[in-house]
């Protein structure tokens, strides 16, 4: 395979069971050629299984997988991994400990008999990841970050049309994670391959993805652009998994286009409606951290018209600071309010613990959903 260009990935109705446990429940998705797709979900959500089905390491029980125009899995048809033109970075890197770094990287070239100078190509791949001169060492002699880079070079060297990443950064410390994330993003996009990347870290997902697929208990619950996933999560699970400042009870007062007006936190609040709501329903108010802003001390009188202009809707919630954490750019506050707690409320100045404040909630970052309290 010499194509430096990616293939489209088409997964339709894939089911995978392990005994009685259904790891993947009718999952369908499509990635365009060259797209960077991130599968996001908590552990046990099936994202790893989906990746392994794409790789051909696991066989799907039902459904079909197409890579470009080639059908690779359907019914009894199962194209083995070695025939799929893949590169993959494993969570534990899976560098063969008895082979040198150079031999590890050259392995895909030797298998594909791609011709040319194998050693030169492997050296080039190592240089790309900043490890030229490491070829004669053994994986056991490298640090975690270096091992990760070798794994990346091995995945890239064969110019695969589909690159798979299985939580590649989860074993690294924060600083290294950020640097390697950038390298993966650049090198993978540069290679032109289609990328499927799995992670349980939402910030990693938002930073990398062209498209995000969120998985929950084997089901693909949302498949969209990152911005859409953040602003219009398909369900409370996606909203909660992609980061909330608060998850509060409320009652729907009325609906107003794509918004719902709720009675909650002792105030009236406007929020994007997830649908399925009617006046009088019990609801949950989900608040994104970015939608919160501290305006001023709670002992000062509220000015009329503060918060959101709507006449009835206030959107300004009184509360008390219980914790403050320095974050470099400013401070994250934890604020108790009448019905619960707001976390990650950002302000550039620090509010002392115990001080009374008011928090403005931006309706664009608030989500109203039916009160089903069984998720997560």
């Amino acid at each position, binding site marked *: 395979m010499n194509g430096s260009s990616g293939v489209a990935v088409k997964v339709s109705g894939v089911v995978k069971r392990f005994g009685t446990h259904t790891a993947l429940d009718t999952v369908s998705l499509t990635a365009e050629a060259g797209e960077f797709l991130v599968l996001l979900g908590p552990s046990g959500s099936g994202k790893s299984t989906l990746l*392994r089905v794409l*790789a*051909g*390491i696991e066989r799907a029980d039902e459904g079909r997988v197409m890579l470009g125009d080639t059908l690779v899995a359907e019914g009894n048809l199962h194209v*083995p*991994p*070695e025939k*799929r033109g*893949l*590169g*993959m970075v*494993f*969570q*534990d*890197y*899976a*560098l*063969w*400990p*008895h*082979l040198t770094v150079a031999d590890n990287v050259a*392995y*895909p070239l030797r*298998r*594909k008999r791609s011709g040319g100078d194998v050693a030169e190509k492997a050296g080039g791949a190592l240089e790309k990841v900043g490890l030229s001169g490491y070829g004669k060492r*053994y*994986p*056991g*002699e490298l640090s975690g970050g270096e*091992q990760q880079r070798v794994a990346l070079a*091995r*995945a890239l060297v*064969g110019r695969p049309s589909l690159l*798979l990443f299985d939580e590649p950064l989860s*074993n690294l410390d924060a600083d290294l994670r950020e640097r390697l994330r950038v390298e993966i993003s650049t090198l993978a996009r540069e290679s032109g391959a289609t990328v499927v990347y799995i992670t349980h870290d939402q910030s990693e997902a938002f930073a990398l993805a062209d498209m995000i697929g969120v998985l929950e208990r084997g089901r693909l619950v949302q498949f969209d652009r990152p911005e859409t996933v953040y602003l219009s999560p398909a369900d409370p699970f996606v909203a909660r998994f992609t980061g909330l400042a608060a998850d509060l009870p409320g009652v729907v007062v009325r609906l107003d286009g794509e918004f719902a007006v709720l009675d909650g936190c002792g105030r009236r609040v406007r929020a994007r409606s997830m649908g399925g709501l009617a006046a009088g329903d019990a609801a949950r108010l989900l608040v994104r951290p970015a939608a919160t802003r501290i305006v001023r001390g709670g002992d000062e009188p509220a000015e009329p018209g503060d918060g959101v202009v709507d006449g009835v809707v206030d959107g300004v919630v009184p509360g008390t600071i219980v914790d403050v954490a320095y974050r470099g750019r400013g401070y994250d506050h934890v604020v108790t309010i009448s019905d619960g707690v707001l976390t990650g409320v950002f302000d550039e100045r620090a509010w002392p613990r115990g001080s009374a404040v008011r928090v403005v909630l931006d309706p664009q970052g608030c989500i109203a959903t039916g009160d089903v309290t069984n998720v997560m």
Partner: protein
Amino acid sequence: MTATDHSAPVPVRTVPSTVESTVDGTGRRRFSWRRPAATSLTRLAWSLAVLAVVLVMLAPVLGFLLVAISPRAFGQGDAWFTLAPLASALSGSTLQALLNTAITGVCAAVIATAIGTALALLFGRTQVPLAGFWRLALWALLLAPSYLEALGWTRLAERDGVLAALSGTDITWLRQLVMGPAGVVWVLASRGVPFAFLAVSGVVRGLGRDYEDAARVHGAGRWSRLRITIGMLAPGLWSALAIVFAEAISDYGVGATLAAGANFPIATYALAGAVTNFPADYPGAAAIGWLLMVLVLFALLAQRMATRGRSYAVLSGRSRPCRPVPLRGGRRVLALGALCVFFLLALGVPAFGTVSASLLGNFGSADASSFTLQAYQQVFERSDLLGPVLLSLRLALITATIAVAAGALIARVLARGARARRGGAASLLDLLMLGAVALPAIVLGAGYIFTYNLPAVTALGIQLYGTLTLLVIGLLAGALPQASRLLMGSFAQVQDSLPAAARVHGAGAARAWGTTILPLLSGSLLWAWLLTFADRLLELPLASMLYPPGQEPLAVAVTTLIAGYDFAGGTAVLVVACLGILAVIGAALVLFRLLAPAGWRRWEQR
């Protein structure tokens, strides 16, 4: 002391240890637990005790080995220094015996490693039907002494053996195959399979599946994958080869039974002969001992050289554990068939040979209707048959208990030494243990006979020669290295912080050990005891060299009975002893399950 802001601070005085922070060679800060300095006297006493034990156990062997090059120093000849015994050991029939030993050792090692690796991959990677049963069979194979397997095959295939008695015809080709090099190699190899299996399956378990998946994803077909896997198994394969080779060439049971009957001399038997014949040729025996040990060392060195300079460090904890795949259709049939054939040849046939021989009367009563339980009745009636069983039972109980207790101490020192990467005592102890593992039991026994029989030693008032005490010391010296090796792995896994945490929170040294380490290791200790017990009960080489007159241990009684054509009696004693061992193992496991607190059993090993 930290934790002073605790609501109930620990009074410093009740904590007998201090946390020391040291900076090791790598510049990293390390915390370790040290006893207060006031115990240097205790330490001296300990050192002296250890020294005494080493002197009693290993010094005799050193003396025996020295007699090979300096016979006059021990009153065994004229020369203060000579290489003549070595030269004569390297010529004529002893050279033949050594060559036979080396060749059968290599063959057994290769066969056992191949089978052991196949089994390790089969059990580690696939869902074998009846896996529990096969594992039990492997343990049985590990516990069965080589002379038992050799006797089983011999009784089956001999001219007046079981097959001849049952079929009425003499199966010549089978007899010639069994009673020759092929038989010797097979018995040694099949005995080695459990060792090879254990050595390789540890590595297989640690590998996980990702390495193979990585190969597949990057384009490897079936054979490339197998090559990658075998490459990563190399450390396990080399240690399997070395262990099986060392075990095979140290083996005495086959030499004393099958090989002796087949006129296929091997070195251990020649060595024992040189010591026990009259007049005893100690320098000659010692020379053979040297050469045997050189062979063992050669194997260990080869293993070192093969794996040195390459780091096989596998990133533990991160690997995706290997989910065994089910076997279907042809593969299932193939795997089951291969397992059946192997265990039939390694265990089934010898067991059948032994049991059926015990049920047939002596002198090959020619038809199957003559099956009788008479021999078993005699075991419980004749004191010369039951006596050895009871004696060996006593010996095994004593030696297993002491060996496991002392082995635990040694394992603890070794494990701590390995963790602290400290030189000195721990590494010396490690070396001693390695040496003791490499020391064939027959050399140990010969050393004891020689040294404790020296006029100079008896003049010192050490009257151990010909006593049960000496036999117990010998059995202990043989069991200690294995027991400590068995426990070493478990001790290495226990974090220092566990007993440390107990002590910080107010427990004394003994209580801390009893409440943290003992529960975690109770399963391992029990298994180590059971294995040592079974092994010592059936032990042959030391028993045959050191037993006091009139007090024959089990293995000696069995071989003597068989040599005296009392096949039914000999095999019946053996069967009774094996059933006894199974009963003890079963009872111990049941008791452990019933009596040990639930938390202890969570850590129980297979």
